[in-house]
């Protein structure tokens, strides 16, 4: 503890002051009442919680839906980003900088502006539909925007660059000898990748997964702009209740529930990844 506390202290204190206290306010607010749709009244009621937890629509179509979408989008992000990260680590100098810049460019520009680019691609008569129909993958235009597909695609679009960034260092620092040793005992490139490289990139992958999952789970901008009534992700509900409907008590209750769920899922991931590999890689003193 003597060795552990001082380095942890600044971060912990910052969090205590700037996160814990505000969150206490959120917790308190979540027990308040909303009167006539706008006016907040101090109270001690569980209504806001029962309203959410007692409603299967909220539970299934927002909470569970968000978890599912967040997990799926995270998974796809990882699958898409991993090869790119691998490729980036094989480049160097200018080529690498250009690649990294391109990877981060969408985030630099921001979703709000790029949505219009997406409309060009995704709209009914858009590029993607035209392409798919030309290729005879399907014959009727498929709806991407303002649909769950669009939400997932855009979450992946945003998430993938973060995964790439998280992975770079882990991949880069794997000693080539380890792969050589695997090849030598008969592992193909592919096997060597799966059994050696992949496990050793787990720390980076874990970081990426946690980051992207958290971003996805509380996403509101994407479902707001690309979603429709079928993609009411919980982050969007919080946004709407808090800012559009002025229902801060309910939004606070939702937030508290989200924090708990999020924490449980992240702890689950920590245990899972720890079991899988991280415990083995940790350098303990």
């Amino acid at each position, binding site marked *: 503890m003597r060795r552990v506390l001082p380095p942890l202290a600044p971060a912990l204190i910052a969090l205590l002051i700037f996160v814990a206290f505000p969150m206490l306010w959120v917790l308190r607010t979540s027990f308040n009442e909303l009167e006539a749709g706008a006016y907040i009244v101090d109270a001690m009621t569980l209504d806001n919680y029962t309203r959410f937890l007692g409603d299967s629509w909220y539970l299934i179509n927002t909470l569970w839906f968000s978890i599912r979408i967040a997990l799926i989008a995270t998974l796809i992000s990882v699958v898409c980003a991993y090869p790119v990260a691998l490729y980036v680590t094989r480049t160097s100098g200018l080529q690498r900088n250009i690649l990294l810049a391109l990877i981060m460019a969408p985030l630099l520009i921001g979703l709000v502006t790029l949505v219009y680019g997406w409309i060009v691609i995704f709209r009914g008569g858009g590029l993607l539909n035209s392409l798919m129909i030309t290729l005879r993958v399907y014959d009727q235009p498929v709806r991407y925007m303002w649909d769950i597909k669009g939400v997932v695609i855009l979450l992946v679009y945003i998430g993938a660059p973060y995964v790439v960034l998280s992975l770079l260092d882990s991949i880069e620092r794997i000693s080539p000898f380890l792969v*050589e*040793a695997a090849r030598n005992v*008969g592992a193909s490139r592919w096997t060597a990748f799966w059994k050696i490289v992949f496990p050793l990139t787990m720390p980076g992958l874990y970081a990426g997964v946690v980051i992207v999952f958290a971003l996805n789970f509380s996403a509101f901008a994407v479902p707001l702009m690309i979603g429709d009534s079928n993609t009411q992700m919980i982050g969007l509900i919080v946004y709407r209740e808090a800012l559009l409907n002025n229902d801060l008590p309910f939004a606070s209750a939702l937030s508290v529930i989200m924090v708990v769920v999020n924490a449980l899922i992240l702890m689950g991931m920590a245990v899972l990844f720890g079991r899988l590999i991280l415990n083995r890689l940790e350098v303990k003193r």
Partner: protein
Amino acid sequence: MSDDAIQVSGVVKRYGAATAVDNVSFNVAQGEFVSLLGPSGCGKTTTLRMIAGFAEPTAGTFRVNDRDVTRLPPEKRELGFVFQNYALWPHMTVAENVGFGLKLRKKSRAFIADKIAESLFVTGLSGYEDRLPRQLSGGQQQRVALARALALEPQVLLMDEPLSNLDRALRVTMRRELKELQARMKMTTLYVTHDQEEALSLSNRVVIMNKGRVEQIAAPYELYENPATSFVADFVGITNFLEGSAVGVDGGSMGVRLRSGQVLRAAAKTAVTPGAEVRALIRPERVTLTTTPIEGENILAGQLILSEYFGAVLRYSVRLDGGEILRAEVHNFDSFVETGAKVWICVLPQHLRVISQEGQG
């Protein structure tokens, strides 16, 4: 068709401007044990890595069991390899490290467990199955690297200084295991070591490398007793060089006139013209050293300047009256000679080799 398990032909490896391996060729016969010996940085690891397929040669070809493997990926070459820096997989336990190759070969669970247990037993690591590499000492890690290669019972095994971090007793045991395994499996072995005792005692033949080139390929005894160049002579065992000129060459004997004018007689094995500049080679263990004055042929007088104790061996450095430094080794001694004492050294003519000073050096 040839009998050779490994054929290395005209291999060159350049890193930018620097040449790490320079036109190296040698063969290793089926079941043979060949050592690669040479000073640090001479290209041993590079050569081995190219044979295994981890690096591509700038020029040259490799054949393993009469198949050109130069362009084959490492996993198709079916070679065992022990890395100089171990290259243990940090996320796998000792048992997993050792068993990985077997699992890839789809062996049965029981078989794999057996093999793991066996290789760990041989390398003295039983009981360490579930440790991770970072929980092992340096020598233990090295033994895991060895066990990992042995578990696969490869037909051809390449080892890069596999025993460098082991204590002598363990090294002796390991060596014996290796030799036994090799004999039992008819395994072809190419062995890199910096320990010449190891090279000499284990090998059928030894390849001596220097600065990326091959200096000599010979059987151990031949190498030690008949080094082709003074580099080899010096590198394999410690050797005294005394410079001089050839005199009185006749039939089976000749003389070397040292700087001091003294003439040493040698049983001539080399053809040298009289008057040529030559070097007389004297192995330290071949000389007799006394503190009582003796006279006669091939007696050199001098003063003891340093004595080093190695347990079974005492090594003396003597400054000859001619100014040269000569090292002498004494075994089975009971007392030490004091530094500074006057000593006499006797070398029998049959223990004196003569090589010409330029040419082969």
